[in-house]
């Protein structure tokens, strides 16, 4: 009998047949949990839970290696999927009993679909993939999980690990960048997908000048479609950071100002412009004459005011803080004065 299916485990274990009534376990003395000193957090274990773990304690004590012990761990993880020790003992049994690891992979896949936010089941799958040195199912598996929950952190993490260790970025069957592009198209606000985009490019082509130009264009397309989407603005700022100065880009400043002129009320747009002007001010501070510097500063001050007064009132106090930062760095001007509520 294999335990490739947790339903199979459960149907073999109806509530009426407890381990302590099972003649096949008559030779084992169950060990009750030692709750003698427990005054707090006395958990009201179900009869089934207590039964399974009374026998698990016995098996851990005797270090029994057997098929029936393996079956017991199936029941134990079905009862309490977060218990590290059960999963660890199960892995020992998998090795010592030379169990079919592909069957186990199928089992854990079904388990993950039922419990997609449990750390232990994902870790168990990762170990199996490592033992098998076979990640051929992993991209389709994580894609399946992401269909139900496109932002599942564990799925993205497992996917990244497989891509990295097994170099699955790009082959005849799969292109990760294409997958990411689809995810973003599906939901432009999926922050996990944008993160994955950065990850793929960073680990394959890198952000060369040509790629960077392309990515700026790509991101700008999605910004115009959804100008209030933090994820795309974060990505834009992220790819430029340390590589290219936004204010030196031929179009970015004018494109952003155009959106402002079209009354696009996006806090991220104004914040991006604020950062752009601050970066330019950093560079010109000592070089160019006062007039230009004052123009930049005035504009930056206006953005801060717009943000704190109208566009991003939740962060009113933060934008006042940003104003003070600018003043400390560059001095005051008409739109940039220390006034209003102190923080």
């Amino acid at each position, binding site marked *: 009998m294999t335990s490739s299916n947790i339903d199979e485990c459960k149907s073999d274990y109806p509530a009426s047949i407890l381990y302590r009534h099972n003649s096949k376990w008559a030779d084992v003395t169950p*060990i009750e*949990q*030692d*709750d003698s*000193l*427990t*005054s*707090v*957090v006395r958990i009201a274990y179900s009869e089934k839970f207590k039964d399974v*773990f009374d026998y*698990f*304690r016995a098996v*851990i*004590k005797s*270090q029994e290696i057997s098929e029936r012990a393996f079956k017991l761990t199936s029941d134990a993880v079905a009862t309490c999927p977060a*218990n*590290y*020790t059960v*999963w*660890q*003992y199960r*892995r020992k049994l998998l090795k010592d009993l030379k169990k079919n690891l592909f069957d186990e992979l199928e089992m854990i896949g079904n388990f993950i679909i039922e419990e997609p936010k449990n*750390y232990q089941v*994902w*870790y168990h799958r990762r*170990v199996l993939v490592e033992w098998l040195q076979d990640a051929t199912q992993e991209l389709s598996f994580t894609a399946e999980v992401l269909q139900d929950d496109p*932002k599942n*952190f564990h799925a*993205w*993490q497992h996917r*990244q690990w497989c891509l990295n260790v097994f170099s699955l970025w790009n082959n005849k069957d799969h292109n990760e960048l294409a997958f990411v592009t689809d995810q973003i198209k599906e939901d432009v*606000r*999926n*922050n*996990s997908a944008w*993160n994955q985009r*950065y*990850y793929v490019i*960073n*680990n394959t082509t890198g952000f060369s000048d040509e790629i960077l130009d392309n990515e700026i264009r790509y991101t700008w397309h999605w910004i115009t479609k959804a100008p209030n*989407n*933090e*994820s795309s603005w*974060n*990505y834009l*700022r*992220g*790819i430029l*950071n340390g590589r290219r100065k936004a204010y030196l880009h031929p179009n970015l400043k004018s494109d952003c100002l155009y959106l402002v002129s079209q009354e696009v009320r996006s806090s991220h747009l104004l*914040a991006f412009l604020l950062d752009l002007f601050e970066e330019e001010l950093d560079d010109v501070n000592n070089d160019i004459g006062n007039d230009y510097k004052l123009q930049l500063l005035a504009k930056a001050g206006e953005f801060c005011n717009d943000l704190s007064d109208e566009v991003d*009132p*939740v*962060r*009113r*106090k*933060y934008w006042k*803080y940003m104003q003070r*930062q600018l003043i400390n760095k560059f001095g005051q001007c008409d739109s940039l004065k220390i006034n209003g509520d102190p*923080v």
Partner: protein
Amino acid sequence: LSLAFFALSGLDVLNALDSLSQILKEDTIQWIYKLQISLNNDGSNAKQCGFRGSTDIFFDNMDPASPFYNSHIAMTYVALNCLLILGDDLSRVDKDGLTSGLRALQLDNGCFAATLNGSEDDMRFVYCACCISTMINDWRGIDKNKAVDFILSSIGYDGGISQGPELESHAGSTFCAIASLYLMGCLDTCLADKQSEILKRWLVNRQIDGFQGRPNKLQDTCYSFWVGATLKILGLYDCIDFERQRQYLLSTQSQLTGGFAKWTDTFPDPLHSYFGICGLSLAREFDLLEIHPALNITMRAYDHLQRLS
């Protein structure tokens, strides 16, 4: 043990610890120490030492070097928290064992696993390791340089911090990372000004009414702590919108049973109840006791720790 922590620390923040009898407090301390795995005579179990979360695989006369009888780093963290909250002097904590146990869990890249013999590793456990070391005032368990390297390599392109390199930035891991740098005493030297400013922007952007954990995700009560405490450590907490946060948090309170849920009109649970009141405590509301934003215990419990050294 984590449930005990939510309950005990929660009562502490509510300034209601004395609703527990002295006997109950002492029994609890005994129970916690029962969960400790101390060094055995020949030190063969050094790597296993620390605390477990329950007596799940405990049995009488068990060999403290039993295979699979391993401590769990998060349980060691909450065990020490609970002991301090209950006023224990930590004299029965096996520091040699604890630090050996921690060392065995640190990986080459500086990150920590949670337990021996097979465990995931991520920023949560780096945080636990730093808290543990702070509380026992003994840093033999951590290679600080490696831990710092790991944290810095986990800063994302958006300025937030993730569970590990190149993963998506997340408020939980950001808290763990910043609190760790703070506890290791190198927050100001490790984080460049520009990095710090981008991080602050990322954090304040988490506020909707309550706080979310990642961009474009739903707000959730517990992020009032993860984000709030990080902002407190970075000195920018006063920039949040207190009114909106209070309204959100109170809206997640259950009118029937008390306690907080992650969302409005959802069942409450111990974790969200605890972090909900921590969120309100950070905002210094409702006469709640002040909490230490890095260690996640009341300042009262922290003062007790200070007096022990």
